[in-house]
């Protein structure tokens, strides 16, 4: 938690976004060749050089892991029926409508294949995630362009100008007004059958976002989109995101997921954060979640829940690195380098033969020590900074302020180590709602 990448400033985000859009529109030819989906819907569908066979109802695109999804077909309205024409039959797409290669095509119903999406029905006017701009947008218009091998979706318009254009007469609607266009490569779409191919691209784009950015985005999304986005994340990164969410939003989200999934996510979260998320569930819900958990995770979380949240026991994380006095420093050093969350390990607890705390050795001291030494040689004269698990939150704050340490060790009545409270958890607890996100924005 201590070493997060700094949050990009709003201006930096805007620059990042604009650069992409500029790149897309830099080429005048590209800008002129853009076809507006909103303008295209309802336009005539003709046989090449011939008569009108129907009107365009929708276009079908396939999310195939490429940055720009190909158009795989069109849905026509012929009389009162809807018919599907595959992309091979489409000779041209322009602002006046689309042209088919020949009159010989079979009219069949649209049957959605995996990864396929109706652009006007499922994407236009729906929520999307703009990965570059780190925000949730709603598509005002979608732009198509001809590339080497056919027509592809290249951009999404989120400007108000396009909305106004769509409210006007049909004639206006066809003319693209690309005022705020986002390159489709930076877009995370929704509404697709999750296919195995799709996931790869999603992860690549989304992994550029910071967990707190993703948490903000999750909070903005509608319910189905939220679940879809969460499902595309790896359990570990999903857990990081959940740790950054507002407690109320997190509770709502967890209640809405199947217990097995909740158990999996909680297992990947920091124990103290996971315990917090569980705290407001009722006994039945808790039982359900615990029975879906692996015994190791459950036994780690259960004791945390025993302490009220306003006490040291309720705040601590149980991830501790404990070393015995006669351990060799080299072994402990190796253990530090193997730990998952190295940057959350402020110190290593040194205990005597009875398992009682003698000292809390800062990781730095340990790392610069001679590997051949014994742990007891590193033990300092000063008392370790500890609090009882039942101590109120205010004591924890006082201890940290008095000692200027980055963490405080939590012990039971017998001076045995139970967990650790990091200064940043105390900051989170001290700053009221939304504090966490604001802190990130401020230090940028």
């Amino acid at each position, binding site marked *: 938690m201590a070493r997060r990448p700094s949050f990009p400033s*709003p201006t930096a985000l805007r620059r990042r976004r604009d650069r992409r859009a500029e790149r897309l529109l830099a080429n005048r030819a590209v800008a002129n060749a853009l076809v507006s989906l909103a303008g295209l819907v309802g336009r005539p569908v003709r046989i090449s050089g011939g008569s009108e066979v129907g009107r365009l109802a929708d276009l079908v695109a396939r999310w195939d892991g490429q940055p720009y999804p190909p158009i795989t077909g069109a849905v026509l309205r012929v009389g009162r029926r809807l018919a599907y024409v595959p992309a091979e039959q489409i000779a041209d797409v322009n602002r006046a409508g689309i042209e088919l290669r020949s009159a010989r095509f079979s009219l069949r119903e649209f049957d959605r294949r995996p990864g396929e999406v109706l652009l006007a029905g499922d994407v236009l006017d729906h929520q999307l995630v703009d990965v570059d701009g780190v925000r949730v947008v709603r598509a005002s218009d979608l732009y198509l362009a001809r590339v080497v091998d056919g027509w592809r979706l290249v951009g999404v318009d989120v400007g108000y100008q396009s909305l106004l254009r769509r409210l006007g007469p049909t004639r206006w609607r066809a003319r693209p007004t690309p005022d705020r266009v986002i390159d489709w490569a930076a877009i995370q779409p929704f509404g697709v059958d999750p296919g195995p191919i799709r996931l790869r691209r999603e992860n690549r784009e989304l992994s550029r976002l910071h967990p707190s950015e993703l948490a903000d985005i999750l909070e903005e999304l*509608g319910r189905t989109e939220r679940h879809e986005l969460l499902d595309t994340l790896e359990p570990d990164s999903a857990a990081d995101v959940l740790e950054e969410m507002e407690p109320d939003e997190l509770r709502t989200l967890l209640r809405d997921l199947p217990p097995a999934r909740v158990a999996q996510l909680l297992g990947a979260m920091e124990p103290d954060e996971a315990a917090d998320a569980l705290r407001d569930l009722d006994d039945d819900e808790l039982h359900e979640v615990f029975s879906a958990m692996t015994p190791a995770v459950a036994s780690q979380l259960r004791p945390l829940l025993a302490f009220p949240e306003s006490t040291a026991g309720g705040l601590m994380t149980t991830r501790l690195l404990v070393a015995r006095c006669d351990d060799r420093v080299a072994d402990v050093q190796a253990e530090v380098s193997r730990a998952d969350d190295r940057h959350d390990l402020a110190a290593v607890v040194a205990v005597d033969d009875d398992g009682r705390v003698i000292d809390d050795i800062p990781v730095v001291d340990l790392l610069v020590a001679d590997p051949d030494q014994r742990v007891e040689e590193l033990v300092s004269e000063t008392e370790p900074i500890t609090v009882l698990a039942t101590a109120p939150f205010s004591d924890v704050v006082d201890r940290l302020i008095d000692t200027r340490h980055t963490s405080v060790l939590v012990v039971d009545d017998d001076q045995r180590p139970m967990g650790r409270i990091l200064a940043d958890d105390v900051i989170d607890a001290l700053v009221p709602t939304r504090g966490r996100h604001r802190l990130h924005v401020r230090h940028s």
Partner: protein
Amino acid sequence: MIQPFTRLVGRRRRRVVALLAILGPGVIAANAGNDAGGIATYASAGAQFAYRTLFLMVLVTVALVVVQEMSARLGAYSGEGLVSLIREQFSLRIASFAVVCLVVANLGLVVSEFAGIGAGFELFGVSRYLAVPIAAVVIWAVVVLGTYRYAERVFLLLSVAFLAYPVALILGSPDWGQVASNTVLPHFVASHGFLVLAVALVGTTITPYMQLYQAAAVVDRGIGPDDYPRERLDSVGGAIFANLISVCIIIATAAAIGGHGPLASADQAARALEPVAGSGAFALFAVGLLGASALAAAVVPLSTAYGLTEAVGAERSVSRRISEAPLFVGLFTVQVAVGAAVALIPGNLIKLLINTQILNGVITPIILAFILVLANRRSLLGDAVNSPRFRAVATVSVVGVSALALTVVAQTVLGWLGVG
């Protein structure tokens, strides 16, 4: 995240808090319907036709409960507000049309709410030129500078002012036999005046901003399907509570000045009560008017902000900071500022803006029809879709309310043309 300070409260206190925590969007949305205009209409109903409109209020309550419950359910199960849903599931054009009407109609409402605040303070001898600007600044600050939870608590506190009306009712010692028989049996009067009033009662009780606010606030509060049973209590209970208050106003005025003829405004009702029911009733009516106007003066502009930001796809919430939601906060600010300013300008501007409320009659059928269709969609709500029986009640309610709303529009337009 951890909030130790709130967790330090004892167990008993927490139980009370849990009970209060149920109250929220539903209570606020429905009670905002008892605004300055609403109080005037209810008081007028009591003054003009005594207890005869009570049976109608029973029907209106059923309709309000059904409509508010559907709105809350849509918000909880989709995670999106009504206008967003209309744009996604139907068309941008319809969503835009509804929102443009809403913006104009709501502006009219905001003006009348601030006029209500001014009138309320003047009943206590405070100048409106002092009271209205201060009220506007306070309302703005509560919403913009606080979080949703904070604003909600202030709104709920304002709703307590409504309890003035049941007290006024008891002070008025009404004829309980009459009240009971009029509530259970229809006592309609076959006159033009009664029809006009009936239509106005329905219009003021079920107004589009209430449904918009209900759905958007449920989303803003982060209420999901699992919390929904509690939210249903809130929306159903809120609607019933709001209409009980309306009924109290009708009965209180009926008991004191029943048969006196129509009243033009809420403060006129308070003044008319004073000689008959005493200064206690006068003060209670004035307090109720203040609370009601202040609540609606916050909720109406909020619903505008929700509606418009949803339509253009920039939906953000009350919990966001100004820099994060410039459009939302900007819209709210402009509505409050314009509403308060116009309410202070003497002359006909007020009347003109209050007349724009007629647009509510145009969008009521649109919004209600979409709520009904959306709540019937299994693809959207899954198992939370309307059951066949609920669907029947909802359809009757929506058709009935829409028909009455359109009657208001027709009447007003004919009135402008000099017919009718």
